[in-house]
């Protein structure tokens, strides 16, 4: 029983690791790429007014952050969110199972 459960969980993890991201890719609308990176060199321009940037600088200089933050509420309902939840629950479930079943029990502890 223990072995079959372990195999099932490992199998699910492996499957999710392979399939999950692909499904997430299909389900999640692709955000715009980040225009500025650490390797960028001089004078890249962002289309953002200075006044607007001062009021909401994240939108001006961190488009990825700002964009992502705008979609958080629906994240776990999206395909990617479901994949994340599935993986996390599987990982946590197996780890909890392991914490109990793989323990080296010291005879002086309860």
């Amino acid at each position, binding site marked *: 029983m223990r072995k079959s459960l372990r195999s099932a969980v490992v199998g699910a993890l492996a499957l999710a690791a392979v399939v999950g991201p692909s499904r997430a*890719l299909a389900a999640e609308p*692709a955000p715009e790429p980040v225009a500025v990176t*650490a390797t*960028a*060199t001089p004078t890249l321009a962002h289309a953002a007014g200075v006044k607007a*940037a001062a009021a909401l600088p994240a939108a001006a200089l961190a488009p990825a952050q700002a964009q992502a933050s705008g*979609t*958080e509420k629906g994240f776990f309902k999206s395909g990617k969110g479901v994949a994340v939840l599935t*993986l996390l629950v599987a990982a946590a479930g197996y780890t909890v199972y392991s914490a109990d079943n793989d323990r080296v029990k010291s005879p002086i502890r309860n």
Partner: protein
Amino acid sequence: MRKMRTYLAALAILAAAWPGLAQSLTGSIAGLVRDEQGGALPGATVVLVSKTGSRQATTDGSGAYRFVGLDPGSYEVRAELSGFTPKGRTAIPVSIGKTSEIDFVLGVGQMAETITVTGEAPVVDTSSSSSDQKLGQDLLFNLPVRPTNAAVGLMNFLPGINGGSAFGGDGDTGNALLLDGVDTRDPEGGSAWTFFNFNIVEEVQVSGIGAPAEFGSFTGAVVNTVTRSGGNRMGGLFDVIYSEDSLATDNVTPAQIAQNPSLAASPKLNKLLDFTGQVSGPLVKDELFYFLSVQRFERDQDPASAITRLNEVSPRFNSKLTWQPSPNDTFTGTFQLDHYNIIGRNGLPAADALLATDDLTNREDAPEMVWGVQWRHLFGSRTFSEIKYNGWTGYFDLNPEKNVPGHYDASTGLYSDSQGWAYYADRGRNQVNASISHFAEGWGKHDLKFGVEVERSKVRNRYGYVNDLFYYDYTSAYSKGQYYAYNYGYDVEGKNERESVYLQDSWKVSDRLTLNPGVRFDWVRGAPSGASAVNSDEKVYDQKNVAPRLGFAFDLTGDNKTVLRGHYGQYYEGIFFLAYSGALPGIEDFVGYDTTSGRPIEVNRIPAVPYAIDPDIRHPRTDEITLGLERAIGNDWRFSVVGLMREDKNLQGSVLPSARWEPISLPNALTGGTVPGYRWVNRAASETDQLVTNPDGYPILAADGSVLGRIDASRKYRGLIVTLEKRFTNRWSTRISYVASKTEGGADNNGFDSYGASTLYESATRALTNNAGRPTNDRPHELKVFLTYEVPKVDVSVTGFWRTISGTTYAPFQEYSSSQLNFPFRTGRRIFLEERGSRRLDTQNQLDLRMEKIFRFGGGTDRLAVFADVANLFNSSRVVGVQTRAPSAAIGGVDQPIVFGAPTAITAARQIQLGARWSF
């Protein structure tokens, strides 16, 4: 009691005097905003963008701005002023205790549709006199063959640190291991206690060279590990690494097997399965963030020694909640739950560990909980404070794999049947750190920091032999079996107390010169508790230590590109239970039995008299002088050279003040000649007079009171560290470091050699004969090279980690009998036949490799990395341990004696680890 009231009153005054107290684990961004003619631009708006939102500052009359209290990470800053074209900078790295100087030059123009953004990154801090190293996300994500224990393993990737010994300091125990700013070490002796998931690490900063006053309780290095946290952006990481024995290659040579048949099976991982799942994001945008992580780590291996099975399973759960109720306040709460389980842990003392077989191992059960809360408050752009509380509780129990009495054959060095003992260690630690940082102007510019730390930790150790007996088998004299057995045990409990106060300044005397004066005061105490407490207020160990620090940083070229640094500092070790545990009650008598008849008959008894602690004892510390130069070359390269001198002072140990000794000659089994020894001539009259002191220079006396010699318990380190780094641009990055060093003295640096009661210096022969030399972790030459290259078109990155490191030292020892030296304990009868560290293992030349293919999707925010790590690419069969007992020793199951110098451990064989990581 009166002292306690005084102390509490002092703390209350301090607390009232400072509006908020916090210890900094943050960095800053500061700079000037000027026009194209170099004139200051006061009133300019400067905006800082981080993953949790944004902050805004206005330049002062000199055009200066400053953002303080920033978590390590990457930031973006922009500057703007009406009538000028705004500018911005991205990817500005912020590290612990560092100020990133970012200046802006604004040209006259429209402030409308666009801003100019550059990615140039500052790489030199010209205001700090400390020379730190860090492992950021760029290196952590590319490390080939990640260490199984992130708490201590990561620092070995950095220059000057090998086997946990930092700059000649004591291996592992000399390093302060901070998790989110708070020390999480074992309060018994300073080794790592909290083992955490590699994947929760945001950044590791290793300080110690020229460390400012806020860092204390170490004599090696400070390993500052900052963990990840949530932000506005939804984040996740799923990571799996797997390997098995079919992915390994045999590496043991026939010649090695001929010398030691127990090494026939190559050391490899039978199975490795390590997975992590993480998710983080906002609960409330710009205000409340979470981070969750779960890991299960399992490793089953055939270790490098005669032991054939070592199995570890560690489930670990981490969480962090970050709350920003206002732009000036950040509250963080963390929690970790983990359970470390080991089957096959080596049960022999360190000197004999490589003689152990599977029967001589134990099983470890080690759960723990770690928690912490912190509050950071900004008082405008010049002042901020932090208060942290962190604690953990846990235990580790070692029970023998075979629950039968153990045997040791003094004639052959053979251990058999079982390790023969059980050990139960209960621990707890609570610590509050508070500090306030303030930027002030007057006689230059000052970055002042004041902090308070309070530690309360507890230790309980229980030890006992199976069936209350451990057997000595003198087969050379008693061929039918053992004639002797002994028993003792202990149940000792104590509590450590520490209060620390520090004040430091980063005083910018001019645009180019910064002075870094500081002072730290540590009051450390040790007292019995629980079953050991006779009087709960009794302090058996009480030390007040003042540690001055003074450094400078000079911007040689005046453009923030080249800095000359120098520093002098004293660094006191933390408070450890080992410093005073020998003075506590709870230790049983040492009882010897004659077992020739089959039934133990008591023949001798050494009463368990607690050690006295020298009232003039001084706390261990290291004195350090450094001088270094750091230079930014272009936008991407950094070159640094640091000279370092350290001298460990006040190392502790136990002596026998009333003992008198007679010089004798002992046979040398290695050469056939003799080696000088000393026989205890008044043992009965002096064996209960035991003192824990600073033994360096302590006299060993003859029967007539004349001085036979003085103990050398010193340790010195000299090092030159050269580093060349290139950040990741044009598809490649590198870090190359070379360290030339020399460590010498009469104290080893391989763990637990600086503290408390031991028999190392009690035995005159051990203390005086060949004691001084090169400690185990003396590494004259060390070359470490990281190189990452991203292959064009296929987007496969290749990272190599090459190291060439001088091998550890060793020296032959011979074990003499109690009748020869009249000394009862084995460790004091093991005498070096040559000076300490006279021989050295082969130089380590090893390359580990990672090949990684990254698939980007989700518009570039998602990365699926598939990677293969190859450990020991060239399949080296380097000997990493030899048999040091002369002329030979025996290993269970092996018929032939293992002669001195024969291999007892081989480096792990070439093995491939496969992994995948999805992150976004």
